[in-house]
């Protein structure tokens, strides 16, 4: 298998900093002006915060009379260092979490995860400055730890440097049915995001990154813009209930076709694209009238049983006999039954989209309250397919709330083969998850928008390199995890037998612990 690994080219990591002059700093250095003797010791002892002995005294006054050091491009490593605070002869310096950091992010995507993802997208490297592995949601991935994490400290680039690359590739067709063998070098591909929910530049950036990593991205349900055709070997065509812009041609073009039965952010409901975002360009490709809200029906009205499901898969196979079929479902109580149904319907890939999945627009009630989180669904489906003796004939891709390299590894250790990544790719492009993608012009950062003035904030080349960098950093982290666990390939991380926890510990491989 190492040979297969060698065949993959690893794209080059290149620094790709934020295009903006400002930044969001985790820590704030405050100098009490009346106390400060301007001796400059702080600058001398600071390893990174201030960088050189030439303090930029272009500080400015806060309304309350304190001075704040202008450190726009320089990052303080924060409370664990505090050398400047300790060495200041007049006790004039204090370091605290900056208010912008405190207001950034949420429990699932903490400020740390956002800033860490940005850092990885900028540099392809990971630092100890941020908690880059878990969020603060209090359950699921945030409560699971690999054995080696329990006593170790945070992960950072220094620990990754001397780890040799491991095999992280994933074969997507396990059925041996004569259809193409597709193997991707990293166990992830890009999630379905439609033209309309995101801009064309974002789609192109994602597609270009997918090409560079020899993996995939997906059209989402909003049609197949012509500009994407040049990347067609790396673009999955989605067939969703709205059938927006779906033609025999776009189905024939794809190496993988995804049938979207449900979406984790709004299970049981169809896709939403509110009127403001249905611009003439979007309307044209979706074959609809502009400026009218689009609500996809739910479900596929030709699929009300596993037999219908089989015929639906067959229909796709008839149109494109060379494509692999992926079935995207969410997580109801009987997700294991749905999974086995999809196996017998002929799916090559089963994508389980957990209840906390991302979205361009969804009712809040659905995002929070319908369907189970993917952390439960993966082992339930995996165990059931193992019991039925078909687990090794289908690829399970987990999605819906998978944010970090460690989340991917945990999903695999729970029983998935790989993961589908959506939100994290957008965060790599500068998304802060401010939840404003749904209406008006959409995203003020130019990501989830089709407003012509906003969409040019995202340069395609810049964006694709950011995503490439992110996955470079992830690949290093997966190699590190495999190295720590003594495994050769990421396939060995996926349990062969049923996943069962006893007293919070994973009985089989003792890789994963569930914290109480």
């Amino acid at each position, binding site marked *: 298998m190492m040979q297969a690994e060698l065949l993959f080219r690893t794209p080059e990591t290149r620094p790709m900093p934020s295009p903006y*002059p*400002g*930044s969001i700093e985790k820590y704030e250095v405050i100098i009490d002006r009346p106390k400060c003797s301007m001796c400059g010791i702080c600058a001398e002892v600071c390893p990174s915060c201030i960088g050189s002995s030439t303090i930029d005294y*272009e500080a*400015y*006054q*806060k309304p309350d009379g304190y001075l*704040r050091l*202008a450190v726009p491009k320089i990052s303080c490593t924060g409370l664990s260092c505090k050398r400047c605070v300790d060495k200041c002869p007049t006790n004039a310096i204090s370091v605290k979490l900056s*208010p*912008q950091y405190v*207001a*950034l992010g*949420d*429990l*699932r995507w903490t400020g740390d995860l956002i800033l860490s993802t940005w850092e990885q997208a900028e540099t392809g490297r990971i630092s100890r400055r941020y908690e880059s592995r878990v969020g603060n949601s*209090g*359950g*699921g991935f945030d*409560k699971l730890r690999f054995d080696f994490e329990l006593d170790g400290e945070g992960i950072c680039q220094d620990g990754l440097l001397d780890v040799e690359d491991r095999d992280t590739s994933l074969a997507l067709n396990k059925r041996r049915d004569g259809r193409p063998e597709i193997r991707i070098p990293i166990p992830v591909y890009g999630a379905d995001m439609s033209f309309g929910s995101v801009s064309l530049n974002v789609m192109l950036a994602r597609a270009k990154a997918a090409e560079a990593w020899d993996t995939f991205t997906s059209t989402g349900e909003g049609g197949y813009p012509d500009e994407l055709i040049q990347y067609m070997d790396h673009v999955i065509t989605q067939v969703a209930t709205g059938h927006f812009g779906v033609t025999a041609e776009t189905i024939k073009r794809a190496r993988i076709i995804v049938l979207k039965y449900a979406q984790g952010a709004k*299970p*049981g*409901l169809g896709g939403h694209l509110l009127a403001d975002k249905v611009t003439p360009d979007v309307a044209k490709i979706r074959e609809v009238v502009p400026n009218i809200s689009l609500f996809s029906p*739910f*479900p596929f009205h030709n*699929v009300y*049983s*596993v037999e219908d499901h089989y015929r639906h898969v067959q229909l796709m196979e008839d149109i494109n006999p060379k494509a692999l079929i992926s079935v995207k479902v*969410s997580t*109801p*109580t009987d997700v294991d039954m*749905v999974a086995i149904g999809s196996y017998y319907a002929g799916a090559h890939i089963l994508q389980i989209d957990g*209840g*906390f*999945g*991302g979205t361009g*627009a*969804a*009712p*809040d*009630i*659905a995002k*929070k309250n*319908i369907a*189970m989180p993917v952390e*439960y669904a993966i082992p339930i489906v995996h165990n059931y397919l193992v019991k039925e003796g078909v687990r090794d004939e289908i690829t399970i891709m987990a999605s819906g*709330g998978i944010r970090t390299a460690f989340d991917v590894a945990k999903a695999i250790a729970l029983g998935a083969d790989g993961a589908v990544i959506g*939100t994290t790719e957008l965060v790599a492009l500068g998304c802060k*998850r*401010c*939840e*404003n*993608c*749904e209406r008006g012009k959409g995203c*003020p*950062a130019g990501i*989830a928008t089709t407003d012509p003035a906003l969409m040019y904030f995202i340069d395609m080349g810049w964006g694709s390199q950011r995503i490439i960098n992110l996955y470079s950093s992830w690949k290093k982290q997966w190699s590190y995890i495999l190295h720590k666990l003594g495994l050769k390939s990421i396939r060995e991380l996926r349990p062969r037998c049923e996943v069962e*926890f006893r007293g*919070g510990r994973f009985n089989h491989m003792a890789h994963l612990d569930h914290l*109480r």
Partner: protein
Amino acid sequence: MKVAYERYHIAVKEAPPRVKLPPKFMVTRYNNCTNVQECMQACVYGVHEAGKDGKIAEPIHDLCRGCYMCVLKCPKSAISIGMNPEFEKLGNSYFSPDMIKTIYFEAETGRVPVSGAGYTGPFAGEGFDGIWFDFSEIVRPTRDGIHGREYISTSVDLGRRLQSLKFDQKHELVSNVPRTVEIPIPMIFDAPLSCRTGPNLQLALAKAASELKTFAILDAREYSSELTRYTASLIPRIKPDEIDSFENLVRMSQIVEVELSDGDVEDQLRNIKAINPSTLVCFYFPYDDEAPERADTIVKTGGDIVHLHVEDDAVERDPDVIKNAIRSVHSYLVEKRTRDSITLISSGGIGEAAHVPKSIILGANAVAVGIAYQIALGCRVCHGGKHSEDCPINVEDEDVELAAQRITNMIGAWRDQLLEVLGGMGLREVRRQTGEVGRAMFHEDLEAKVFGEKE
């Protein structure tokens, strides 16, 4: 002539709040700003605008949605965005600032809250937050209620039901079918907190209940003469020893609510039915360990409705209590084979739309919405909802029309969200959701199933 079929519709209309909520974000511009106005270009929400003198004006915090574009685009790092401490102080540990903000949005617009990006909250929580709904996928059809393509009924019946019908030899019905009252939404209004009760609030509540074709419970002692035109939509709450003194109210009302006491329930029932034989009698009692037996007694003595209440303070202390309350009473009645004879209304801790179907799936037939409608009118639950004199908002100052519209809007948004849930679950009517715990997923069950029992 028979009245033509009318589809139930809630008329929502913009109703701005009388008192604005404090903004969520505070935008600070430091005085090293050089007025390059990049922030003005960056902000699509209009937080940063130039004043008349051409200089950038004070940021408008209300419009900020936390996108940070001004922070990133400012060449001087002269802008900072932080949480507004005033906003974070709203509510209490149960009624969170975001919950209050959502109710405000629903009350103002009547729309379903929709947002981008995935779910942002905790993985799971106690009480209602530890429940996920099942939905239909591939093998079960869903229904599309919200966009009106398929009809989903949200009606429920209040009152007793027979377990079976009896017919004589001539096939004539001999069973005495008890009267029921149908309401088009599984929601009524609980009596306002005593500190808030005033004529304006009562009128607004009565008006909203009447427009929504549902009911509002009001303390009988606080009825005012202005409420007379709304009696068809009001349920007087009466202490058992005061039944006789409110004879008139009992006579006028379709439903009467009696506070459960140690007294003889049968006696009280007989008293009320003697005054008004057609009225339905609801017994109201707070949840405690004996609640299931109490409910069973009410069913056996012939009460029509059980109103199980959990104090909001108790829910705040332990959110699981509301879940346990409904489940224990429902299950006990199922065990006693009396559950289907009676209507169970639950109240307490209802702070968002999802809490309505969650109460129902736990076993209630309908809920009594309490503090949420007061939040819609400006209450901030600041002192556990119990303080009296110093309310900074003073709900009483509210204009009646506007207040009624805001309550109506909130319920309109909640009903649409109920339809989303029912549609996703593939249910044709909310009646079928009662007690359907098999279509709900509980955090503790999944946790035990996947990650093992606690040791």
